[in-house]
């Protein structure tokens, strides 16, 4: 079974040379730490920066340079700043190659719910609805089950949706899955996890091919 860092490491392997990537808050943010150093990638943050670098050294924080998580950041050579309308132009116009975000639920048709739990304080969707409605290539990073042990890979989402039919790939602590017309196609098992365990943790239709390799991280 993977921990959060393991999920981030596995997703990092999906990041290809020349990709512009938008990382959501939580596990997705960790992905930046594990991208191969021999490829060129630029990170976009929807609050208006392209070419984000690491956190600043202590004492070098600049209140005017933050990411969408409101964290102080730095920029890399070749970076640019822009306004929010332009930023979402990049996203809506499909100029961002890969979006990685967390989810509360994913349905076997690619629907995603990650912004609202009825009866609880709703913080808002931020840029998530724009991202999932627009991105060609969306990877969800999440635990396979919720804290109560219930599956987060469902036939149909029970929570209010963030977007419809948009998720392409899911990386959980148990598996890598692809959303297909027939349901969740099991691509890889986490180290030490059996197909039966994954089946057990998946409420939606799970398609198990003859051979399901173990992930390489």
């Amino acid at each position, binding site marked *: 079974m993977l921990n959060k860092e393991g999920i981030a490491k596995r997703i990092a392997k999906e990041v290809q040379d020349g990709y512009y990537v938008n990382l959501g808050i939580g596990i997705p943010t960790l992905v930046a730490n594990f991208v191969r150093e021999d490829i060129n990638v630029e990170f976009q*943050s*929807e*609050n*208006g*920066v392209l070419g984000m670098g*690491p*956190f*600043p*050294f*202590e*004492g*070098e*924080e*600049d*209140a*005017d*340079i*933050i*990411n*969408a*998580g*409101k*964290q*102080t*950041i730095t920029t890399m050579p070749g970076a640019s*700043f*822009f*306004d*929010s*309308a332009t*930023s*979402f132009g990049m*996203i*809506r116009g499909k100029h961002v190659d890969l979006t990685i975000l967390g989810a509360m639920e994913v349905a076997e048709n690619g*629907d995603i719910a990650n912004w609202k739990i009825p009866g609880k*304080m*709703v*913080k*808002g*969707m*931020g*840029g*998530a*609805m*724009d991202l999932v*409605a*627009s991105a060609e290539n969306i990877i969800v990073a999440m635990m396979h089950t919720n804290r109560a042990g219930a599956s987060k890979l469902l036939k149909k989402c029970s929570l*209010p*949706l*963030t*977007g*419809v*039919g948009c998720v392409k790939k899911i990386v959980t602590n148990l598996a890598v899955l692809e959303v297909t017309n027939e349901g969740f196609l099991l691509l890889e098992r986490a180290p030490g996890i059996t197909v039966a365990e994954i089946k057990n943790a998946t409420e939606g239709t799970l398609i198990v091919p003859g051979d399901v390799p173990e992930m390489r991280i």
Partner: protein
Amino acid sequence: MIRKTVSNVQEALKGVEDGMTLMLGGFGLCGIPENAITELVRLGIKDLCCISNNAGVDDFGLGLLLQQRQVQKMISSYVGENDEFERQMLSGELAVELTPQGTLAEKCRAAQAGFPAFYTPAGYGTEVAEGKETREFNGKMYVLEEAFKADYSFVKAWKGDEAGNLIFKGTARNFNPCMCGAAKITVAEVEELVPAGALDPNEIHVPGIFIQRIFQGVDYEKRIEQRTVRKRA
């Protein structure tokens, strides 16, 4: 050159009244119009509808207006950093209209640029699209969203000149440019106000035509919400 300078925040906020709809720039606490917010608190103007991506924190930014119960409605994309906000929302004192962030930005830009409405894919199939027209273009579904209508827009820039031209710094740009000219009156506060001619016409982010009043801001706190750093090697 058409001069837009006013001498201080009091003059800049003339005409703001109870019940008005205000746009406020900023993302989190980054690039917010600190001086305008302070003056709105001092004036005690009530029943405001505030269009702002976020709602500040309890004791800073828009949180200061919420503390004083001056806000009747918030139109935002994310409001998660504010306990007082949560209390007022759950108690029903505060109306909240959550809007996808890109839609929020474009509803401002549409108002600025004279577009009455636009089609966006964001929110299609979700509760955000409920009651709204949806439509297919090239096999994909879109939601019709309308331009905002606001009375005042308060933005904060890094540098500005007497003609109202603005230059922003870093990610403090965010929603500020799209809100310029998106309300009946746009008020810009700047860290540094310079004479006309001091800014390179090629480097201006927002031309002065979108600004009605500009003033030299004071005492910027520029609070950092999440101070994240790394160790030196």
